[in-house]
């Protein structure tokens, strides 16, 4: 067990956990931020996606010790003032079905748009390939990303 000071969604959290503990479980079990989901535990499916300094990472593959002082952003903290444009686009396109994968999809999409406000379909595919959707909402996800990109630009 070790002490860590995590910056999650703009708030400092002092926690005492094993350094090997995946960030996912720190978020879900210790900080009770359950919007981030567990899928496969091996980084193959994506619902555990969070941002470290704005970049999407798989929290199930990120040990808490490796986070350091980087800023962790989860789906709960994505929209600093109300909803993030990606979240708005998601609602407008009615993308989710069961919704389980969607927080990860949104985090990946937000990370993509932060670095590339004009993504092509191919760039969207590249950025989103790690996020599986069992309900098959990819078509709407792609549309929602384009819509969000438009909103961010305007």
């Amino acid at each position, binding site marked *: 067990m070790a002490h860590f000071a995590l910056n999650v969604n703009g708030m400092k959290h002092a926690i005492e956990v094993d350094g090997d503990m995946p960030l996912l479980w720190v978020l879900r079990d210790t900080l009770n931020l359950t919007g981030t989901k567990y899928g496969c535990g*091996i980084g*193959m499916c994506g619902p555990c996606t969070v941002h470290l300094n704005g970049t999407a990472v798989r929290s199930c593959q990120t040990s808490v010790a490796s986070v350091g002082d980087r800023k962790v952003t989860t789906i709960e903290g994505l929209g600093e003032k109300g909803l993030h444009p990606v979240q708005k686009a998601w609602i407008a396109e009615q993308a989710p079905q069961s919704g389980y994968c969607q927080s990860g999809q949104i985090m990946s999409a937000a990370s993509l748009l932060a670095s590339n406000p004009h993504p092509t379909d191919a760039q969207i*595919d590249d950025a989103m390939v790690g996020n599986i959707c*069992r*309900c098959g909402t*990819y*078509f709407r996800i792609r549309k929602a990303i384009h819509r969000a990109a438009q909103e961010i630009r305007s």
Partner: protein
Amino acid sequence: VRITRRGFLGTSATLVGGIFTIGFQLRAMAQDAPGAIGSAANPSDAWIHIKPDSSAELVLTRSEMGQGLYTSLPMLLAEEADLDWNNVTIVQSDLSVGTGGSGSVISNYLPLRRAGAQVRLAMIATAARDWNVLESECTTAKGLIAVLDLVAEKAGWNKPLGPHRGRGIACTTTYAYLAEVAEVTVVDDNIRVDRLVMAVDCGQVVNPNGARSQIEGGMIFTLSSVLKEAITIRNGGAEQQNFDDYSLLRIPESPALETYFVDSHADPHGLGEAAVWLTGPAIANAIFAATGKRLRRMPFRMDETTAYLMSAAAGRPPIIPALLIPSPAAKTPAYTEKHSGAKTCPESGRSGVFLAKPLPWVGGHHVYPSSTPKTRDAERESSLGRGNGHPAALMRARSRDSQRMQFDYSSSLSHLRPCAVGLVGLRCGRPMAHRVLQVFKPAVFSCGCRPPGPAWLFLALTHLLLLGAVGFAADEWHANGSAVAVWTGALSINRFGIEFLTYGFIFAIAGIAGIAGFHIRAQRDAMHALELERQLSAAQLRALQMQLEPHFLFNTLNAIATLVELGRQVEAAEMLCHLNAILKSTLERTTPEKVPLSQELEIVENYLAIEQVRFADRLHIEIRVDPSALDSLIPCFLLQPIVENAIRHGIANCEENGLVEATARREGNLLRLEVRDTGARVSSRSKPGSGIGLKNTRERLAHFYHEAYEMVARPLEAGRFEVAITIPYERA
């Protein structure tokens, strides 16, 4: 008759066929037998005329008197015959039958339904005949026609696609009517689905966005399952454990989706998972359109080695049966191994479906006979225990015997001695003196040298009798105080008693040992018999398995279908006969132990005839049988597994043509059977004589002929292999 054809060619008959819709410019008349169906009191007929403008005229034998015939019957007819009820007019033709009152709706109901169905079937039959398609490929269902028209329009069905691209269509009725078009690109065996277009008629759409979402989800879900998501089973469980080896469709493979709903104000009929049904067939049809290859296994892979039997409607080259089994080089073992669920046979290295272990019922018999040797032994032991073994009992018996000997009997038994010596001498045929001496030796001493047998028993009895006789005499000699007493001192009637008991004990032990030995032998025999029976069952089972093996049956049926398609009806009929004979001989046989060679050859020939069609030019067969050998009896299913081995291990592994030779001839009192193949490379062979099949054959031969058989399984030069069996000639 003019019928509108909206042919969607390139679709599969097994999934959803080329759909042809029929306009209603068909003139037909259907009539039900008067009074056949209406109630006895209200007999009724229905005549239907379909006019060239696709309106229908319904001729009734009942008059409308306000019962509602004009309203109900056109609707009924329209529903049954897939007509438009607004275009049905009623003609009252015969007022003499009467009104029938309100019951006339009922009495008209069944005749009208039947007549309506006949009209519908007549339209379909006409279309099928005129276009030379199956009736099952035609529909009159307006809902289905509407979605097909819609999806064809939206997908641009008639627009040509570029090279390596194909379009496929599928339709279905669930709660809703659905039709879907898939567009694929197949380059270098990579299947890419570019676009899926779905048209749906589910009545009034209550939540358009939700319904669209449902359809899109259904399409992607199915796309994932037909392109990905292979699950393989090993040791009773799925091998795939997580998303690293269980692959789901991801966003780059997700195509453009279009969903169109028929604008309908009918009651909502539900939507549910309907989209899931269509995507697979539509994609399979599109792949066929792009490549001419039918894929019949999911997930779809272009390297699937499945034979296809439907040549495309658009003049595809005919498929020759020889293609049905590709040579090994054409396979991709890694894929076959991983995705087909097939296991590799450790014996032959060939893939296929093998039983991992014998079926439980084959080896599950108890080997003990129904009587219980344990109980018998227990009885035997307890009966022995009554008079033997315990020192006190021994003493009691001894004193009782000695008293009885001393006081009850006289020396009249002494004459037995020469008699006994004579008998022993006669029996053994050895020098008399030696025999005489041996008689005085307690038989128990010889027990260790040889097992107790009749001779030993005789010796022992003689010894006892002699001892008894001498014992009686000795008493008298003692009483007379003669010199004889010095050397006969050791002989007393008491000793007789002891020996009597000793013999009793020994007999009992021998008895137990004998009975135990008997049972052990009986069990061993029973086990042996059961083992042979099991092997016979196994041989039969193997024959059955091979012949009924789904692949075998599947390939055979495919080959037959291809023959039919190529117009080679005679060959197709022949092949069906062979299949019939094989099924008959394997399913009906009550497994006699031996059958005439001619009968065994029939099975083999039927089997070979089918393999011949499957392998076509790759397999040459020569069967040479000495006519005088035909009536010889041979163990049932002796040859078939050997021939099967020759084909499976020899010909199937052989990339060039192969020859299977079977000969049978009589050599005096012997029958010689030989099976040879010009097989595969030597390296791919299992070692001679190591196969389970050969081992079983050998054991069965040993059972039937003991030492009087010979079986040699050996590789010959140049990868050839021979199994030669020599058995005694038995006339049937």
